[in-house]
């Protein structure tokens, strides 16, 4: 087997099977036409994103909170929330004041 180049290892090609796998992880149902279309489009985007491999980041910290807020607490007090009827007002299926969902376990 041909040895993979560094770029390939970092940015594996997006196969149709990967698209199907990712869609199932994300709970999206795709037709086979959609899978083909998204494979092409997402591959082009991933190819562009590979630009980041040029940047050396070994000694760089990541930034997740950009303004430097940390450990934000609030008092542990009960606030007024939604009442049951309000909470249920958007659902299409309810049962005895509760949300009705599809069975999770068969």
């Amino acid at each position, binding site marked *: 087997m041909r040895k993979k180049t560094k770029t390939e290892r*970092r*940015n594996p090609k*997006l196969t149709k099977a*990967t*698209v199907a796998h*990712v*869609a199932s*992880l*994300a*709970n*999206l*149902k*795709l037709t086979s036409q*959609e899978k083909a279309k*998204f494979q092409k*489009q*997402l591959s*082009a*985007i*991933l190819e*562009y*994103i*590979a*630009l*980041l491999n*040029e*940047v050396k*980041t070994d000694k*760089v*910290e*990541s*930034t*997740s*909170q*950009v*303004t430097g*807020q940390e450990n*934000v607490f*609030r008092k542990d007090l009960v606030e007024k929330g*939604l009442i049951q009827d*309000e*909470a249920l*007002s*958007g*659902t*299409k299926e309810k049962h005895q004041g509760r*949300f009705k*969902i599809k069975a999770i376990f068969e």
Partner: protein
Amino acid sequence: MIELNQLTIKETREGLARKKFSSLELTKDCLAQIKKHNKKINAFITVCEKEALEEAKAADKTISSQSSALSHQPLLGIPIGVKDLYLTKGIKTTAGSKVLDDYLPQYSATVVERLERAGAIIIGKTNLDAWAHGSSGENSDYGATRNPWNLDYVPGGSSSGSAAALAASMCLAATGTDTGGSIRLPASFCNLVGLKPTYGRVSRYGVVAMASSIDSIGHFSRSVFDAALILNLTAGYDPHDATTPKKEVPDYTKEIGEGVKGLKIGIPSEFFGEGLDDKVKEIVEGAIKKMEELGARIIKISLPHTQYALAAYYIIQPSEVSSNLARYDGIRYGFPREKFADEAKRRIMLGTFALSTGYYEAYYLKAMKVRTLIKKDFDKAFSKVGVILAPVSPTPPFKLGEKVEDPLKMYLSDVLAVPANLAGIPGLTMPAGFINGLPIGIQFLGPQFSEELLFQVGGAYEQATDWQQRRPKL
């Protein structure tokens, strides 16, 4: 005579205080404009005609019985458009997606509450790229919005309806969100003042989340003063959003008019490279010259990681999108995931892929590190200059359909907008000229929490130019 619906908020407040006209007359003018032109422009998804008229009558009553009402409620009787990404209690909120086609929120966004408390009238909910995913408005599940300056062109997105509604004089200001240029791009394409505040300056609570580490809550207006006046109301700590610091909110209107003598303005060479349209470049250079004439010192600077910003953004943003959109299961409200259209699906999948086992470090973590470098570039620049002046869009507004088949091409529209989002800094877009009758904007960028300075600079530029006096002929 200028029509009431074309006034700035400042002018309207003076007119209302002096009883030159009523809020009802003004609101009726806006509604008439919506009736006349919304079919072709498609700026609003929902129009709140009945409620708006009632609120206008109530505002007039308050003003006539209490002369100080306008100083307590700075937006009393002022009709505004609200991007349909902001939850509005009892008013349908779709996020531009059929997933939320019938969603009636049980509470309002903090910003909506604050604007309403200040007396603003919500005239309607504006169209947008579904879930705020887009640069043109064409990703809306409710049809594309058109640019009032030329109906064959896009108004920019994702806050497409807000920009188009204000440009078409259907309201006096409008709210937007800017995760990767979604206020600055449409403001630029529609000849408006657009503010993207510092990350965390304005509460995100009750605004449908797109990418939580970058979402910024701002607005469109006809003048710098109006932009500052609205920020006075929306900015500040909110216990419901832990990213809002307990930092004082100054009177943002105060420094407008102070001028820019001696102020150092940085021009980042990376924003003027390959891909920048020649005519856009000319317009931005004109603005730089204007600032120099006003007494500012122009200094060349470098933001060396600019070229990596969009790539980092297209890892961070879809990753966070995939997480935020995971909650839409159609159980508690809305419709099942089958209703997601293509762009949402693309971003959910891209993000799910980037966060999946084995790829997290190569993608998300890598991008968050590049983000640090981009932020450091800005920190370094702001140690030398007060603000930065740059183009918003590399090209003039584009035609409907031009980029829809090629998502990457669409994403590149925001290549000059996203660095500010990754660094969490504020940006103010100002109208700066026209190419073939289509508006072109510039952006002033400042350090985090420097909105006051941006208004000062934008105010000086506004004083010296008259681009924003122009209105489209509909």
